[in-house]
């Protein structure tokens, strides 16, 4: 008979920091680390820097668009801004920060000492990091700093043949290709690591049906990474061959096809956004139960729904292409698959509601962000359904309605879930609590800013304003809406500044957290905060989905009911 032993840690000891080591050793410790916790923090830190940079790029665009025929930046600079903003936010903010949290939390949650391939983990991080640096070098390379240099200006999806050498002269597009190609290899490595870790490194007793939902969702994310990054890599290699070896893949003058680039890109691009949202779902599935004081409602259905979503997400890609002139049968198919994916997604929303129903909801900052997520993700999903109805899409696509929709998902959904995750796991990572008071300021400022910007952004879309335009005509009735949208940016910036201040000041003077400040139920809360390098002195043995619940409630353990 096996035994479960969770060694208790003192609740009053301050977190151990290696301030005793000389500076050089501390830095090289971080650079050469293969510890999943440190790599997780590196990913998160890297992403936060790029969040600020991407935010500045967005701010520049919004100031240019605050009124018609504005001259804040030239069209060339504006076009570089929207390209870099999109590329940065997706590849160098969202993916790294989510991978960082997954890296940190998954081994702890499954009772493992590290990921399956720690060195591959480090390689993956550094590839991603170098990819971002190469992309940003484009500002300096190419035409130099005057006029903001040679950053790519082809849009984050780089449609052919705008990327052909004849239309994209110079090297700006090449920075886009190579930066993403390199970080793509890092992403695939990370995906391989996630899958292998979850499948092979679970502690005894943790069968697939007993893993936390967080782990399930990130397993599915890992599979999507493997399936989605390939098409992008392949398309980018093809584009490099066109640009450097005289190839004709996308050369429409030689029989090549502009539309096949779109197909390849969106075969990557759509699963990519599910790679972004699945970890956000994972955060929700851990935080909502803890702050409702109930287990997740319908665990098996949640697992099934997640797998369904991942599966269907591979078949919806051409809903980004409803306007390219596919046949009516083609369009109808993609309407069907897009509508179908709404069903498991809706089921997840209902299950989170079901988790809150009948509970005792605690309105700490992580939960505030989660409740806002539910409200906003609902709206984002509904505008997605509108966009999925192809004829309606023929009006809405390529307009600010789409921009509003996807920012609703990414900012209103993913970023809010990320903030929840920050407040929830920061105590575990650093040993100190983030300030609740500052957190509430962060929440309300950002909420107001988000809604000012992205609620009202839908309207210019409905009034015919296309996206990716550096200025607009004053006679279209778009002026007031653009003004309100830009004002919202100020509130969001204020919220983010409060957040960054909170992170820094709480790291030094925050209230001590102890092992388990939230009275939670998954294995990471059984370790000290921060956990020791080896995570667990003795590998735990679990019997249910909430091992700490079983320990805290030995008279009524979960394994009696699961």
């Amino acid at each position, binding site marked *: 008979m096996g035994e479960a032993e969770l060694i208790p840690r003192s609740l009053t000891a301050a977190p151990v920091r290696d301030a005793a080591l000389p500076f050089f050793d501390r830095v090289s410790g971080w650079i050469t680390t293969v510890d999943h916790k440190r790599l997780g923090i590196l990913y998160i830190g890297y992403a936060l820097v790029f969040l600020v940079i991407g935010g500045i790029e967005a701010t520049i665009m919004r100031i240019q668009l605050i009124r018609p025929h504005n001259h804040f930046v030239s069209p060339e600079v504006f076009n570089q801004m929207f390209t870099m903003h999109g590329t940065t936010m997706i590849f160098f903010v969202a993916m790294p920060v989510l991978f960082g949290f997954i890296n940190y939390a998954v081994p702890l949650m499954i009772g493992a000492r590290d990921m399956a391939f720690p060195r591959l983990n480090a390689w993956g991080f550094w590839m991603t990091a170098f990819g971002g640096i190469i992309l940003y070098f484009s500002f300096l390379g190419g035409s130099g700093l005057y006029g903001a240099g040679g950053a790519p200006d082809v849009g984050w999806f780089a449609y052919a043949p705008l990327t052909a050498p004849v239309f994209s002269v110079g090297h700006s597009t090449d920075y886009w290709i190579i930066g993403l190609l390199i970080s793509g290899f890092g992403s695939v490595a990370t995906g391989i690591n996630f899958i*292998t870790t979850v499948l*092979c490194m679970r502690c005894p007793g943790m069968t697939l049906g007993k893993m936390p939902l967080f782990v399930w969702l990130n397993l599915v994310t890992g599979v999507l990474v493997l399936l989605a990054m390939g098409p992008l890599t392949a398309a980018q290699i093809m584009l490099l061959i066109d640009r450097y070896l005289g190839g004709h*893949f996308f050369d429409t003058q*030689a*029989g090549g096809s502009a539309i096949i680039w779109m197909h390849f890109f969106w075969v990557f691009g759509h699963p990519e956004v599910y790679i972004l949202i699945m970890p956000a779902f994972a955060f929700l599935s851990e935080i909502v139960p803890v702050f409702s004081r109930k287990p997740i409602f319908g665990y098996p259905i949640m697992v099934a729904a997640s797998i369904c979503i991942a599966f269907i997400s591979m078949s919806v890609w051409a809903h980004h292409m409803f306007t390219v002139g596919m046949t009516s049968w083609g369009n109808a198919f993609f309407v069907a698959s897009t509508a179908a994916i709404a069903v498991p997604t809706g089921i997840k929303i209902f299950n989170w509601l079901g988790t809150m129903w009948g509970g005792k909801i605690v309105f700490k900052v992580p939960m505030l962000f989660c409740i806002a997520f539910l409200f906003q993700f609902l709206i984002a999903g509904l505008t997605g359904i509108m966009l999925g109805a192809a004829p309606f899409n023929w009006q809405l696509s390529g307009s600010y309605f789409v921009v509003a929709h996807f920012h609703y998902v990414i900012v209103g959904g993913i970023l809010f879930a990320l903030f929840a995750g920050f407040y929830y796991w920061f105590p575990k990572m650093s040993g100190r609590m983030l300030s609740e008071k500052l957190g509430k300021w962060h929440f309300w400022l950002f909420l107001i800013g988000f809604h000012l910007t992205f609620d009202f952004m839908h309207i210019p879309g409905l009034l015919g304003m296309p996206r990716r335009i550096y200025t607009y005509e004053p006679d279209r009735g778009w002026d007031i809406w653009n003004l309100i949208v830009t004002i919202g940016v100020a509130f969001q910036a204020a919220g983010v500044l409060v957040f960054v201040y909170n992170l820094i000041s709480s790291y030094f003077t925050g209230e001590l957290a102890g092992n388990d400040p939230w009275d939670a139920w998954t294995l990471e809360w059984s370790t000290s905060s921060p956990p020791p390098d080896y995570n667990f002195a003795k590998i735990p043995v679990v*019997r249910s989905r909430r091992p700490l619940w079983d320990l805290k409630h030995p008279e009524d353990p979960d394994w009696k009911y699961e």
Partner: protein
Amino acid sequence: MAATTISVPQPEIPLSPQMRGRVGMWSLITAESTIFSIFVVMYLYSAGKSVSGPTPREVLDVPYFISICLFSSSFTIVMAERAIVRGMIKLFSIWWLMTILLGAIFILGTAREWYELIYRDGVTISSSLFGTTFYSLVGLHAFHVLVGLTGLSIILALTVLGYVKQEHAERIGVFSMYWHFVDVVWVVVLSVVYFIAR
């Protein structure tokens, strides 16, 4: 809070840490397969759409010999695996060497085919859409064969130097999975380029 213990029945673990190598390699193969699939789709989509240059039918001959060599190398690598599992390092290194030789013949044969295509038929990667899709697809595969050959050679060198022992059989097995994958990709590429879309 004192340490508490719970007695639980001994649980089964379907996949253990020992399986990491195989699971990781399967994951890598999945990711690589998606890249190859896109190049194959591109090849099929572009078939017949070149605006100039010779057609595949005019310039391509089915490479029977080198294909048989490559497929045989999958057989020899299996024999090598079986040798090392039984601890017969010398036999293992012989089969391993044969695998390398067969792979090298494949690469040399491909090089010869390309030489003819470029200098006799004028088909290059930039001469037509067919040239672009042909060289990129076949070239991507050949690149993977080269990577495999490099790995095989390194392992052979380590074997000759005496570092490879019976306990490394699992790792040899994981590496062989990659070689088999390269072979399976050739089945697809051969069918598509030399039969279906000719």
